[in-house]
């Protein structure tokens, strides 16, 4: 019992740390990459992340790729007259001096053509392509369908 508890604690700590990693690329820093469990591989997965731009030049996220999905795309949830739709986002602005969240109910990556179902505790890499800064890869942690985001000590919103 004690061992089980200890193991559970360790894995929680380890996974929280993964999603909380910050990766930098020039003036951009990318962190809190997370996803949600999928039921089977037929349904699309989701990808959320935080990007901040401490530089003086505007940039934009123009694409994502991952070995976990055949067709990852950027989308935005838009609610107009009470009706939600998810148009494809060609480009997500990352203005100078600002941060942008891909988060529930807003911009998100939609991972279509999953190679396998996403299970809680799994992780997979996602490469983000920026218009100016180039490419950077982050580790994405799979959280439960009920999760609202990774539990990072510095995640204060």
């Amino acid at each position, binding site marked *: 019992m004690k061992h089980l508890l200890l193991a559970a604690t360790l894995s929680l700590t380890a996974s929280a740390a993964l999603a909380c990693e910050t990766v930098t690329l020039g003036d951009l820093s990318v962190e809190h990459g997370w996803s*949600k469990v999928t*039921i089977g591989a037929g349904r699309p997965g989701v990808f959320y992340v935080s990007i901040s731009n401490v530089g003086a030049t505007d940039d934009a996220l123009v694409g994502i790729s991952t070995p976990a999905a055949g067709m990852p795309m950027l989308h935005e949830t838009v*609610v107009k007259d*009470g*009706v*939600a739709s998810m148009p494809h986002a060609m480009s997500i602005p990352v203005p100078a001096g600002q941060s942008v969240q891909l988060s*529930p*109910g807003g911009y998100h990556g939609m991972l279509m053509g999953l190679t396998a179902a996403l299970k809680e505790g799994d992780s997979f890499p996602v490469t983000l392509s920026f218009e100016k800064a180039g490419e950077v890869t982050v580790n994405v942690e799979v959280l439960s*369908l*009920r999760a609202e985001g990774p539990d990072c000590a510095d995640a204060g919103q």
Partner: protein
Amino acid sequence: MLGVGAYRTRSRPALGAVLPVPISEMTWQLTDEKNQRVRPADWIDRPVMVFFGFTWCPDVCPTTLSDISLWLEELGAEADRLIVALISVDPERDTPDALAAYVGNFDPRILGLTGTADEVARAASEFRVTYRRVDKDDGDYTMDHTAGVFLFYPDGRFASIIDFHDDRRFAVPKIRRTLS
């Protein structure tokens, strides 16, 4: 049956296309995730919270169901009489089994309802919900749909809508008002 029909005809023009019909005047029939048939009459004398969505939905639906689960947790036993249902706008893919696998990830009080295309269309029209299939290039499709959460008093009257982007602090009091 005749009485119900007459009632519907009378109330339809006055309500227009804005407010949902009172539960007591609804006529839909759907199937829940345990393959049981469900009718509005089953919900009489219970407060009701309904959300339309689909299980292939990556963002809005799990986010809403996570929110609903948190609201239910905050309300605790107070919400035990509340009927909480996700009605699928994608009956082609959302079989009762698909719904069971999905709603099982959230608060156990949340039911999943589906039906034939016509059954879902009738329920949506009575809730004044719109939905639309959006085909994608690869033959796959997604659904646009009304994203609000509908609340009804125990007597079936429509109470309010919790909009998708409403602050959670306003949601729980809205639900609480339907419980007493």
